């Protein structure tokens, strides 16, 4: 077995390997820590945090769709303070990057959370400006390039942490939004968050989700996510963390070729709790078979 260098460099943040867990699908690591060795992950993006505890939306919060699911969790979380006290010490034990996914209703809230996290052990902040499941703020921020620029710039001024901006796919042109985040001095972009969808129970003639609409994720969104990652990689010069439907090594490699420097796995964990480990092995095997010595050799190498 040849040694293959799996480390990736996100220009300011290095990862031991390009496989991360996507925010909101991996809790604070404890649960899937029983299935995979958290030390083998490049990074963990924790459940979206808000300034204060949030109870989230009423149930049902999930609906199955063909090869995908809709969720409307609505950012249920214990608040940034409880995260720092109760979850971060646990996560910090592992040799993996801890990324705090932060959410606000106003620019000020984003800044305050960022500030609060600045002196902690988190390795990076991921600005979630695209959660479709909160009524106020969230969506509007992520859909408008002007607002993306503003919130990124403001948060940038309140923290020295490595700053990832997570983009919404529910936009007119992902390139506009990506450019705005880059101009606001994001260190990195992550995409995509969920598409917005709906499902109806025709017997009861009402939506399956209590909130009516929810975020679509899983294999269904992969073609859209991959296209957006590709377009973004053609547009910005900061690194990209690609996600959206990644369920196996093949999917992950597609994102790397399209220009993602790292990838995150979300919904696929629910189907297969071992999937991150399988993706690691699969990428390794692909690189070996194709004669590469480093995963960096395939990033952005799509022939087109």
């Amino acid at each position: 077995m040849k040694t293959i260098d799996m480390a990736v460099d996100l220009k300011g943040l290095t990862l031991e390997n390009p496989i991360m867990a996507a925010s909101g699908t991996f809790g604070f690591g404890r649960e899937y820590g029983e299935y995979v060795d958290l030390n083998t992950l490049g990074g963990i993006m924790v459940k979206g945090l808000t300034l204060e505890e949030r109870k989230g939306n009423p149930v049902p919060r999930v609906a199955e769709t063909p090869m995908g699911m809709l969720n409307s969790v609505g950012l249920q979380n214990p608040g940034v303070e409880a995260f720092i006290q109760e979850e971060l010490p646990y996560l910090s034990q592992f040799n993996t990057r801890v990324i705090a996914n932060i959410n606000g209703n106003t620019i000020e809230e984003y800044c305050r959370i960022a500030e609060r996290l600045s002196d902690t052990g988190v390795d990076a902040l991921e600005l979630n400006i695209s959660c479709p499941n909160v009524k106020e703020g969230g969506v509007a921020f992520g859909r408008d390039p002007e607002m993306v620029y503003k919130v990124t710039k403001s948060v940038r001024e309140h923290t020295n942490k490595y700053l990832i901006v997570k983009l919404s796919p529910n936009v007119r042109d992902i390139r506009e939004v990506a450019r705005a985040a880059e101009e606001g001095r994001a260190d990195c972009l992550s995409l995509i968050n969920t598409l917005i969808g709906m499902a109806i129970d025709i017997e009861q003639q009402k939506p399956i989700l209590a909130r009516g609409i929810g975020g679509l994720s899983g294999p269904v969104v992969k073609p859209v996510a991959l296209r957006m990652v590709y377009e973004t990689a053609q547009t910005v010069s900061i690194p990209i963390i690609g996600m959206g439907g990644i369920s196996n090594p093949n999917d992950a490699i597609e994102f790397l070729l399209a220009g993602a420097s790292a990838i995150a796995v979300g919904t696929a964990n629910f189907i297969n709790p071992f999937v991150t480990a399988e993706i690691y092995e699969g990428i390794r095997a692909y690189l070996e078979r194709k004669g590469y010595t480093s995963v960096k050799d395939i990033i952005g190498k799509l022939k087109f």
Partner: protein
Amino acid sequence: MKTSSLCKVLNTERIAEDIYKISVTRPVEWKEIKAGQFFHIKCSEEGKSYLRRPISICEVEANQLRFIVRKSGKGTEALCNRKVGDDLDIIGPLGNGFTPTGEKILLVGGGIGTAPLVELCKTIKAREVKVLLGFRTEPYLVETFKKYCSTVEVATEDGSFGVKGYVTALMEAAMENSPEMIYACGPEVMLKQIQQFGKEKGIPTQLAMEERMACGVGACLVCSCKVKAGDDWDYVRTCKEGPVFWGEEVIFDENN
């Protein structure tokens, strides 16, 4: 570290309309399995259903596990159609399970909610176990329960078997020998009535709740159950803090 388990389908048997008994091999890693816990099953390998489906343990044997499944949608249909010899991808056991306590206990099951009570009935070390079962029309598992406890009473909505009406109608009479605990599983309306009943009679209840799940292991927070938290309320995870809750904690929503 937990490992993935492929369980071989040993037998699939239709025991009532749309109700199947599925027996699978029991992996050696799964040492302790408690009544009220569930397994998260990949019903279809090909994408007919995408998410796993939570299915309660019905009976635990040394070398096999038994589930009772109601064909109700895409996933359970794929599951019931699995052939003997197929490998089922299962994670579990998950959730908390029932807390066995008391010498005189009452089990109340409605429909497919009767399934998890079998293992409870079989393992609980109570002196007196009484079982009340409710079905819409065709009953099932009645003989199985009879093997493990003294009294089994059945109600059916259309009166085709046992007493005509809802299972909760049998509860007043069951008070005669003053049960110390009530364990229940079934439709939400039934659980709500049992919660109320327990409260009125001062008998503690444990209710096995159902909620739509995704991860099944506590990571995604889609399966919230509303419970009391001091003067306030809180959402906890049905898959992790549940699926079994004490009757006094659960808050049922008005509009359901």
